């Protein structure tokens, strides 16, 4: 059964292991059919595929294993990528996030960060604080420290920082506060670093662009200057060429120079234009950089920006001036060139005319002196005359149309002037605007600086005042806290002292109590012991008393028939000795009758016996009393005694009536009582006898009384001794 299960388990395991379509059953079948070598091969293939499949599965499950495999085994990454897809990388934090995340782990600081003003606003403020007044800021921060102060409503960096600190201050615990502050400072520093980088980058870029633009502008200006110079030169030369009356060779030189100058001018102009374009480009780039850096809104860049803008403006102004100069020069040159062109045109015309008239003659008619014939000369002169006429006519026309032309020219000039004016005005306006703007910005910057400085001074003052106030408050608080602390301390001390005293007192009390209790107990023990001693003493005494009493009562028993007891004197003395300080016992002991002490007492039995003998005698003398006491009475009494029969013992009634007082009855009662051991009643009854019978029994009565008395005393003593003895065993 177990083996079947194992087989089944094995089979299922092997089936689940191979994901391939080959089932173990078919494999086994195949295996069985193949030879041993192919079996080995198939087995090896199976093992390899199993290993690879297992590796792939495990790599799917464990990424580290996959990484290790990819590292160590070549082409495994391809295989694994094919099988499992790309490995899931651990996401790396971008720097910004890292910065943000590493700023502070606590929620509070993040909340503080979110509570802060917009980072853009914060950045410049912090930046400013860092760049311009970092010392003050740190001073302020350190001055603020842990003291929560009223957050100022102004939006400067110190206030912002203070506000932040105050926000963090009251909200957080000290540790969190310090950590928050440190985190905030860290964040600030990081921001500052970023800003520094930014600023550095911006300034660098600004500087670069400034430098480049300056260079380009200078170059442009230089080029423009050169162009100007070239133009001026050219115009001068042209003017010279036009107006100077020089020799033809010099004229040709002049024309060559002019051409050279023209070439120079053109090159210079081209250079200037190129330089201008370059300068414009660089200025544009500078402007764009400035705009960018302005767009960054880092205030500390502002002066740089401002300076750059001013430089730009200056360069632009210079360039414009140069350009204007160049343009004016150019216009002049244009005029001059126009003039020169006109002149040249006229010259050419003339030349053409001359050449048309005299085709053989070359140009440069000024050089002609002897080459022309008279015809030519005439033709020339006629032409010249005609030309002069024409020119005169034109001149007259021109004079006539002078005004119109002048007007037109004026108009044109006006227009051109207007245009130029407009341009100039525009450029001047732009420049002025730019200037104004720059001025404004400069003023703004100055004002800002001034404001900043003032603000800083005010802040410093405020900070100083605040520090003073804080110091005062701190002092006051210190005082208060000190007083409070002192109070608390004193109260605590008092409390402690009182507690201590209380405790000591308690201890003392307890000790005293214990001592007292111990003492009391000791005393009690002592008392107990004493009482015990006393009690024992008493007990001993009682015991002695009892013993003596017992001895006494025993000595009572020593009475034999008709013999009295031993004299009780000794026993009584012993009793008296044993109860020396016991008045009662002493009284009792002294209450013993003398006779018993001296002689002893008769026992009850002897008394009883005697009574029996007495009884007959009493019966015999029953009739004799005071009145009847003759012998005859005696005889009669004897007779009566002989003839009267009564019960020998009769129970006496509880109350004796008069007929009970008959002597015979009394005697029978007394006998009864005696027989029943009641000596006392018997004595009482016998005491009722009168007359001679009484006289006869008087002895017996006395003895009986004595015995009774003694017995009573002894009983009392014994009872007392017992009681005392019992009493001593009882607790007092």
């Amino acid at each position: 059964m177990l083996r079947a299960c194992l087989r089944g388990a094995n089979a299922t395991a092997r089936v689940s292991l191979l994901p391939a379509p080959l089932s173990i059953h078919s494999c086994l079948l195949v295996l069985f059919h193949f030879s041993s070598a192919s079996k080995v091969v198939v087995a090896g293939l199976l093992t390899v595929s199993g290993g690879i499949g297992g590796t792939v599965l495990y790599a799917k499950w464990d990424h580290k294993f996959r990484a290790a495999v990819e590292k160590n085994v070549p082409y495994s990454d391809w295989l694994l990528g094919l099988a499992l897809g790309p490995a899931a990388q651990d996401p790396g934090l971008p720097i910004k996030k890292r910065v943000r995340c590493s700023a502070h782990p606590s929620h509070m600081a993040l909340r503080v960060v979110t509570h802060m003003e917009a980072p853009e606003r914060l950045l410049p403020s912090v930046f400013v604080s860092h760049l311009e007044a970092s010392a003050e800021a740190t001073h302020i921060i350190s001055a603020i420290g842990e003291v929560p102060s009223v957050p100022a409503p102004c939006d400067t960096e110190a206030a912002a920082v203070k506000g932040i600190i105050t926000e963090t201050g009251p909200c957080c615990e000290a540790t969190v506060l310090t950590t928050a502050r440190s985190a905030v400072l860290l964040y600030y520093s990081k921001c500052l670093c970023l800003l520094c980088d930014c600023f550095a980058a911006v300034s660098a870029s600004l500087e670069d662009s400034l430098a480049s633009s300056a260079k380009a502008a200078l170059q442009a200006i230089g080029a423009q200057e050169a162009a100007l110079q070239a133009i001026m030169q050219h115009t001068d030369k042209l003017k010279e060429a036009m107006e100077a009356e020089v020799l033809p060779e010099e004229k040709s030189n002049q024309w060559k120079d002019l051409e050279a100058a023209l070439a120079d001018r053109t090159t210079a102009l081209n250079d200037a234009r190129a330089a201008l374009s370059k300068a414009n480009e660089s200025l544009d780039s500078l402007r764009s950089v400035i705009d960018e850096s302005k767009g960054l809104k880092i205030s500390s860049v502002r002066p740089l920006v401002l300076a750059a803008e001013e430089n730009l403006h200056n360069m632009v102004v210079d360039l414009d001036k140069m350009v204007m100069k160049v343009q004016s020069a150019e216009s002049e040159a244009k005029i001059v060139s126009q003039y020169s062109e006109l002149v040249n045109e006229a010259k050419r015309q003339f030349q053409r005319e001359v050449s048309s008239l005299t085709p053989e003659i070359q140009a440069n008619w000024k050089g002609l002196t002897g080459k022309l014939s008279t015809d030519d000369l005439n033709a020339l002169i006629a032409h010249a005359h005609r030309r002069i006429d024409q020119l005169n006519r034109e001149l007259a026309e021109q004079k006539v149309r002078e005004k119109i032309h002048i007007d037109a020219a004026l108009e044109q000039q006006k227009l051109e002037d207007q245009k130029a004016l407009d341009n100039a005005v525009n450029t001047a306006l732009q420049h002025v605007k730019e200037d104004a703007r720059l001025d404004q910005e400069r003023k703004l910057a100055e004002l800002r600086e001034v404001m900043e400085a003032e603000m800083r001074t005010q802040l410093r003052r405020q900070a100083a005042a605040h520090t003073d106030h804080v110091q005062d408050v701190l002092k006051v608080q210190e005082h208060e806290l000190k007083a409070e602390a002192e109070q608390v301390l004193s109260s605590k001390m008092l409390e402690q002292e009182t507690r201590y005293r209380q405790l000591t007192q308690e201890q003392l009390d307890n000790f005293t109590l214990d001592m007292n209790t111990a003492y009391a107990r000791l005393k009690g023990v002592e008392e107990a012991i004493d009482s015990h001693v006393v009690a024992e003493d008493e007990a001993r005494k009682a015991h002695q008393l009892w013993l003596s009493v017992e001895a006494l009562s025993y000595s009572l028993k020593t009475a034999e028939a008709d013999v009295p007891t031993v004299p009780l004197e000794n026993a009584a003395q012993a009793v008296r000795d044993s109860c020396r300080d016991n008045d009662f016992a002493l009284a009792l002991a002294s209450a013993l009758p003398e006779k018993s002490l001296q002689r002893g007492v008769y026992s009850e039995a002897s008394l009883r016996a005697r009574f029996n003998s007495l009884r007959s005698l009493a019966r015999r003398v029953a009739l004799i009393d005071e009145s009847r006491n003759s012998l005859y009475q005696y005889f009669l009494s004897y007779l009566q005694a002989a003839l009267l029969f009564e019960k020998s013992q009769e129970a006496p009634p509880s109350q004796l009536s008069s007929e009970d007082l008959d002597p015979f009855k009394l005697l029978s009662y007394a006998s009864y009582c005696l027989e029943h051991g009641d000596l006392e009643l018997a004595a009482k009854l016998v005491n009722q006898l009168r007359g001679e019978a009484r006289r006869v029994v008087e002895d017996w009565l006395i003895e009986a009384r004595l015995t009774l008395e003694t017995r009573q005393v002894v009983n009392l003593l014994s009872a007392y001794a017992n009681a005392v003895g019992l009493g001593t065993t009882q607790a007092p």
Partner: protein
Amino acid sequence: MADEHARKWDRCLADTAVKTVTGLGVGIVFSLIVFKRRAWPLSFGSGLGLGMGYSNCQHDFRSPYLIHGRMVKDQ
């Protein structure tokens, strides 16, 4: 006290007897001497003796009841 009664009786009887005998004796003597051997002195003497004895005896027995008073003179 009972013994005294008995003693009294003893005494009484002895005394009576003695007296009687003595009386008898005296009587005898008298009879013999004086009264010529008459019998009457015998009986008289014995009677006398007996009476004396009886009287003594009675007196002896009465003696406890006898009250002896004394005249106290007013001073």
